[in-house]
């Protein structure tokens, strides 16, 4: 027992970090009602800023040079000290100023425009910020991952701390004191100052605050600055005890911080501080002391630490139920209308042959020989991503349950199938074969999907009492826990550390439909066809669900759980059914990923890849099957992104950045996603094309012609000589035309003063 207490003190450092981060989450929530999933990224950026100031004396601004020219550039770096290092205190100050700037940016550019958005829209905004900051860090700080510099913290080691017989580094104590101080200051602020009172008032009743002369927007701004600065403090000071700096650093550590913030109901700073420190201590005790005991279950050894925040989060939320503060008086927009799928048969009849043509090419290989190499692989990736996104469409789009664990559920089915298909016989491809029953793939896949459904329903149980963004928090915690409890747990997977689980290729009556093509590349047209057919089947199933009574029940639950219950709908059953079906869909996606990759590792299913998948589904259109298909095409290393990086070699480093900006813009401007944007446009143009004759074309030419010519000229003579990448010239002209037309459309919109049709138009709200 004495040992346990000594180990608990070792957890003070990590605990203080969680506490500081939790405080920032609480502050941001008080100020704006947003659970800021990007909080860890702010800490990351501050830590990078500080360390690079100490390394080369330059301050990197949180954006990148987007101008494709050498002559005109956006300033990205400011040299503070040409001689190299910057003074520690100045560096701390600048890093905090940088976090404050990020806070200002998050308020004005993201969350203020999103203040009336549906909860999912805010989640997507936060994920967008996270991706953006990671992307900027990747570009601005490069891929070197320096060991962060420790600062100000006492370097002493207490040999026998408080007489418990274990050594303890002094910095842990320093961090703890800092966390407590920050907590005390903020607690006093919200309890007694006018600003704090007004913040709490605006959180409870915005109209009341406005009528008394307080601006909720300004209050939110200052709270964002405070929140971002606590993240900066945590990143700069605690960064040193958490290992090398990477752009994705702290993204996982946000989970325990969320747990701590939730213990404090997202409103109490002192409880959040205590909770954070507590979680840190419990984690250390578990990982160092309990796992060494003989009674501790063997299979839990590796995942226990990450399961703790999940357990704490689920318990707090489940016990508290609805008592978490909900921001008063904001009229929240609902999720966009979920369109009724029409002409499913036609879509299948056109899209499936199209997919097969893309796979095999046209007869005679004359015009088009089919996708091959990286193109084929990208197409497979897109198709499989679309399968995963169907699960988001069903769960988030139809039933309104924000689940971020779907990718991990796909991972569960993939890993389970891999183990079921394994037979323990080593081969040249798979020298470290794992033991297993060696079942044929259809049985293995079915079992995998069944297990995925079981896990999904289990994780759906908290959703019976936990709603909205809080459910998102639970599912993130679950995703992190699944990662270490299962995928990284060699006791369950039987994998050697670092090796992958092999997946034998699927066959149909002796025909190999695995993803390896005739040339040994992963581009088999048979597998592409397999994917197309599976995806088509899933689309038909989801569309039919939406059209039937189940779909009506789903939408009723999404709109209003109480009203649904009063109409005789069993809300609990409906939700669990949705979780079950969605997990089945995700399970299929997992199995197909396993077949495509032929071997799987835990890195395929890291939790923020799941967040990004959700965000891309949102980008495509979270409420429709078409949205899942578009989201699949847009997804990272899918068809469109591969096309983009093919055209411009440097683009791939910018992918997360562009994705982040795209998500934020979609959430703000067009919450229904791209599917809803394109569908009416396509329909309109289709009708127009059918009807258009010479005079109609002339009108368009007269209206847009001059701009097209201007754009062409601009592209040819304006941008072309300045270009920095080896983009081909015709592309620059196209870019010029698009740019001019885009600017024109904005100018026209501003001049006419017309406002964008948004999701709160009556027809859509009624859904």
């Amino acid at each position, binding site marked *: 027992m004495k040992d346990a207490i000594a180990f608990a003190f070792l957890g003070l450092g990590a605990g203080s970090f969680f506490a500081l981060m939790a405080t920032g989450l609480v502050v941001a929530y008080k100020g704006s009602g947003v659970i800021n999933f990007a909080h860890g990224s702010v800490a990351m950026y501050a830590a990078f800023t500080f360390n690079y100031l100490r390394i080369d004396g330059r301050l990197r601004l949180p954006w990148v040079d987007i101008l494709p020219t050498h002559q005109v550039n956006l300033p990205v770096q400011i040299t503070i000290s040409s001689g190299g290092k910057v003074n520690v205190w100045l560096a701390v100050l600048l890093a905090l100023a940088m976090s404050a700037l990020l806070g200002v940016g998050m308020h004005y550019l993201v969350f203020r425009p999103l203040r009336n958005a549906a909860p999912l829209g805010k989640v997507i905004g936060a994920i967008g910020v996270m991706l953006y900051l990671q992307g900027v860090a990747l570009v601005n700080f490069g891929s070197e991952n320096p060991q962060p510099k420790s600062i100000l913290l006492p370097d002493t080691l207490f040999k026998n701390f408080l007489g418990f017989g274990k050594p303890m580094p002094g910095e842990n104590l320093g961090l703890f004191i800092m966390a407590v101080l920050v907590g005390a200051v903020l607690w006093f602020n919200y309890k007694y100052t006018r600003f704090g009172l007004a913040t709490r008032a605006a959180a409870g*009743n915005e*109209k*009341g*605050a*406005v*009528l008394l002369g307080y601006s909720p927007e300004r209050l939110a701004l200052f709270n964002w600055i405070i929140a971002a600065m606590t993240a900066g403090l945590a990143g700069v000071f605690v960064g040193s005890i958490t290992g090398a700096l990477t752009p994705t650093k702290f993204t996982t550590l946000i989970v325990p911080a969320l747990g701590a913030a939730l213990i404090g109901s997202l409103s109490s700073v002192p409880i959040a501080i205590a909770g954070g420190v507590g979680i840190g201590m419990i984690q250390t005790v578990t990982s160092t002391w309990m796992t060494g005991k003989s009674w501790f279950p063997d299979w839990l050894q590796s995942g226990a630490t990450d399961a703790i925040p999940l357990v704490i989060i689920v318990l707090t939320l489940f016990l508290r139920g609805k008592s978490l503060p909900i921001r008063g008086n904001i009229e929240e927009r609902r999720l966009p209308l979920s369109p009724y799928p029409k002409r499913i048969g036609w879509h299948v009849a056109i899209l499936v042959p199209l997919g097969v043509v893309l796979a095999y090419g046209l007869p005679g290989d004359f015009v088009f020989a089919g996708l091959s190499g990286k193109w084929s692989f990208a197409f497979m990736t897109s198709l499989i991503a679309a399968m995963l996104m169907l699960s988001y469409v069903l769960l988030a789009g139809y039933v309104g349950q924000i689940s971020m664990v779907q990718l991990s559920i796909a991972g569960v089915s993939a890993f389970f199938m891999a183990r079921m298909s394994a037979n323990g016989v080593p081969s040249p491809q798979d020298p470290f074969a794992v033991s297993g029953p060696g079942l044929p793939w259809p049985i293995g896949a079915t079992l995998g999907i069944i297990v995925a459904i079981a896990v999904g329903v289990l994780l759906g149980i908290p959703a019976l009492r936990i709603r909205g963004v809080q459910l998102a928090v639970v599912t993130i915690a679950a995703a992190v826990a699944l990662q270490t409890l299962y995928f990284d747990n060699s006791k369950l997977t039987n994998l050697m550390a670092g090796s992958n689980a092999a997946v034998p290729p699927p066959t149909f009556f002796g025909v190999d439909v695995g993803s390896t093509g005739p040339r040994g590349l992963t581009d088999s047209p048979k597998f592409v066809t397999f994917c197309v057919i599976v995806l088509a089947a899933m689309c038909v199933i989801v569309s039919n669900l939406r059209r039937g009574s189940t779909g009506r029940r789903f939408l009723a639950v999404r709109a209003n759980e109480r009203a649904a219950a009063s109409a005789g709908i069993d809300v609990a059953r409906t939700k669990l059914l949705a979780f079950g079906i969605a997990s089945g869909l995700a399970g299929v996606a997992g199995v197909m990923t396993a077949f495509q990759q032929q071997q799987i590792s835990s890195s395929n299913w890291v939790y923020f890849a799941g967040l990004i998948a959700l965000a891309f589904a949102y980008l495509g259109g979270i409420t429709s099957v078409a949205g899942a298909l578009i989201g699949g095409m847009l997804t990272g290393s899918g068809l469109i992104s591969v096309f983009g990086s093919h055209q411009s070699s440097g683009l791939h480093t910018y992918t997360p950045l562009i994705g982040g900006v795209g998500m934020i813009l979609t959430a703000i401007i067009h919450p229904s996603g791209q599917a809803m944007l394109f569908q009416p446009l396509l329909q309109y143009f289709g009708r127009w094309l059918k009807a258009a004759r010479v005079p109609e074309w002339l009108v368009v030419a007269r209206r847009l012609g001059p701009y097209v010519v201007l754009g062409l000229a601009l592209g040819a003579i304006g941008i072309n000589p300045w270009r920095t990448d080896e983009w081909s010239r015709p592309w620059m002209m196209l870019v010029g035309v698009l740019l001019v037309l885009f600017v024109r459309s904005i100018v026209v919109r501003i001049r006419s003063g017309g406002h964008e049709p948004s999701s709160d138009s009556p027809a859509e709200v009624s859904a």
Partner: protein
Amino acid sequence: MSETLIDVHDLSAGYGGIPVVRNLSISVRAGEVVALLGPNGAGKTTTLLTLSGILQPISGRVDVLGETVSGVKPEKVARRGLSHVAEDRSLFFDLSVKENLRLGLRGDRNERAASMEVALDLFPALAPLVDRRAGLLSGGEQQMLAMARGLASRPRVLLVDEMSLGLAPIIVERMLPIVRRIADETGAGILMVEQHVGLALSVADRGYVLAHGELAMEGTSAELRSNRRLVEESYLGGI
């Protein structure tokens, strides 16, 4: 003649570009209590929301305390010296009575202390409740708190929306004279929306009757009281 605090000329106001109130012209002078009467849906609350800047006028001129409110944020209008006791009371349920009042206070330390005292003097029933959370108060106490909070900023213009909503008549009878007292003692101009026509006219100097978004009648309290039948007809759609 005292200063005109609220001057509305030819106002059209409403939601999403669709007017609810049309061609309305009203004025409130300092030290005056003016009643805004009319049936449900007549546009009374819409008028008040436009006066305090929460709704933007569609057309017409709205001057409060000598300056326009169109294009001005509601918090700026409030800081000019306007207090709006909203129909839903807009209390901060998680904050204590004292904290609610504190948020209404203006000025330096002495002024704030004095205003707090004045507010609690007007509503002595609140004094023993200062540490209770506003969400735990009864309906009448909540209404008193809303009024007290509105007065704490020493407004020069006070808008009171349906003070009697959901309250027992006896409480309304007790609270209406306070409105009169505020106008007399502080010289504030008060525009109040009320459903209890008789009670409202008993404390008001003048009144306006709205019907279907348009001004149906106006006059002094005495005139309106003597035309009781006409007022009632406007409620029942007779005009």
